[in-house]
């Protein structure tokens, strides 16, 4: 359980976060909001990269103010937006091994974890390739594997599908789904409402450093006025509404409901 209480943060005299309360367990939560709303600043508090000015952040009983980022990295993994900002090893295997090695594991355990993480993101056979030689989607999956190999309970994914084509996006989405099935809590930072409706069970909307919505994805797209925050409902939701089917997450659901009605 990640518990955030009355979190305040600011720099250069600017208040970026103004009193945020938040809890998450092993679920997929989408963190949305316009640029500058404080999403990344908020997320950086969850693994201790930033420490609260006021209020507190507690991860499975650990107060982030009392623990280093390295200690917290076993609990909360943070996959940054641009995978290339973390690659520096000569091949995929060594790249994934960097995190577990920092945890001080034995070579045997490191190897086990690396094989497991590479398999989890479907990059088997890429072990000897240079990270920079991979395609966009492969790089994104490698970035996830690098963090996954540290076996964190929670994963923060910052814009994991931006700039990916449809196929690469599908691959990343399926990796995220399988991670959630295996019991990881996932915080998805994104602008992509299609991704939200496909993946998230819950949505948190930040605006001007405050939490303005926190509830189920269905509630977010049906009862909440998303347009007034400059967000657009996904086409599939609109289609379901136009057909009078209520909230629908994907085409299969629409077809099922239509068949049920017929």
């Amino acid at each position: 359980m990640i518990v955030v209480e009355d979190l305040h943060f600011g720099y250069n005299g600017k208040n970026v976060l103004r009193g945020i309360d938040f809890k998450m367990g092993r679920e997929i939560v989408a963190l949305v909001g316009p640029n500058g709303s404080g999403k990344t600043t908020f997320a950086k508090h969850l693994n201790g990269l930033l420490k609260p000015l006021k209020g507190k952040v507690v991860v499975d009983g650990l107060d982030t103010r009392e623990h280093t980022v390295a200690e917290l990295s076993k609990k909360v993994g943070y996959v940054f937006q641009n995978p290339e900002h973390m690659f520096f090893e000569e091949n995929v295997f060594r790249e994934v091994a960097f995190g577990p090695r920092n945890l001080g594991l034995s070579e045997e355990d490191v190897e086990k974890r690396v094989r497991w993480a590479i398999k989890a993101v479907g990059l088997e056979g890429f072990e000897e390739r240079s990270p920079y030689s991979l395609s966009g989607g492969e790089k994104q999956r490698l970035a996830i594997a690098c963090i996954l190999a540290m076996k964190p309970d929670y994963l923060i994914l910052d814009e994991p599908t931006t700039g990916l084509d449809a196929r690469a996006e599908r691959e990343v989405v399926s990796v995220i789904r399988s991670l959630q099935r295996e019991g990881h809590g996932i915080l998805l930072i994104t602008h992509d409402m299609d991704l939200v409706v496909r993946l998230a069970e819950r949505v948190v909307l930040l605006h001007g450093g405050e939490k303005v919505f926190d509830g189920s994805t269905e509630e977010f797209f049906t009862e909440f006025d998303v347009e007034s925050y400059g967000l657009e409902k996904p086409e599939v939701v609109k289609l379901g509404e136009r057909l009078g089917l209520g909230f629908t997450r994907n085409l299969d659901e629409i077809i099922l409901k239509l068949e049920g009605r017929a």
Partner: protein
Amino acid sequence: MAQFYIKRRSFLHSLDPRVKIIGMLIGIFTLMLFNEPLLLIGLFTALLIMGKFLAGADFSYQFKLLKPLLPIVIITLVVWPVIYKPRIEGFFIGISYSARLLGFALVTFLLLMTTTQKDLVLGFVKLGLPYELGLTLTISIRYIPTLYGIAGTIIDAQRSRGLELEKGNILVRLKKMSAVLIPLIVTSLKTAHELSIALESRAFGASKKRTYLRDLKMTKRDYAFLIAMVACFMIAVYARYALGFGYVNFYRGGA
């Protein structure tokens, strides 16, 4: 980050950048003419006062800019009396060189505090620097904060993977730095490559003779200040070489 420019409406702000660049050079040569400790301290103080009244920069701000030089100044003050005999002369040399060093820095800051980057580069180009070099200079300065930001992100990303830069001895830390430096270098090279494509796609270098959106114009004030500076410099040279003013022959004993 190293942002020297301060927004004011001072006398120095209003001068043509070319005059200020020449002024900086004259200032540096003047400081090199003399080696008498009291005189150099006097010149340094005069520069501080110029900064306050002609550039509108508080003394505290000027000292803040000079602060990074403190270690070099201390080393200079400590080392000269140790390596030079008689020690009392070494002590004075240390003071002279420190005052001169601080003077060099302050003269440069006077220019940087009162001139925007754009004007500075335009000034250099108008003084004969090839435009390509001027542009390179602007771009490098422009990208310092950007790279600084990217470096911060990379450090955050690697810390999230359990990297602890503050642990271990120097060799271990240097080795750890590669986790930050390699992504930073790769990102910089990619940015540079993209920038070159962007420049070419906007027809950079298509015509030999460039025109400028903003042009520099020397006013009467600029000429007056320039002439005054050159006159002062000539007086200083005369005082130094004809009258032997402000110069102590420390080296007469031969070290």
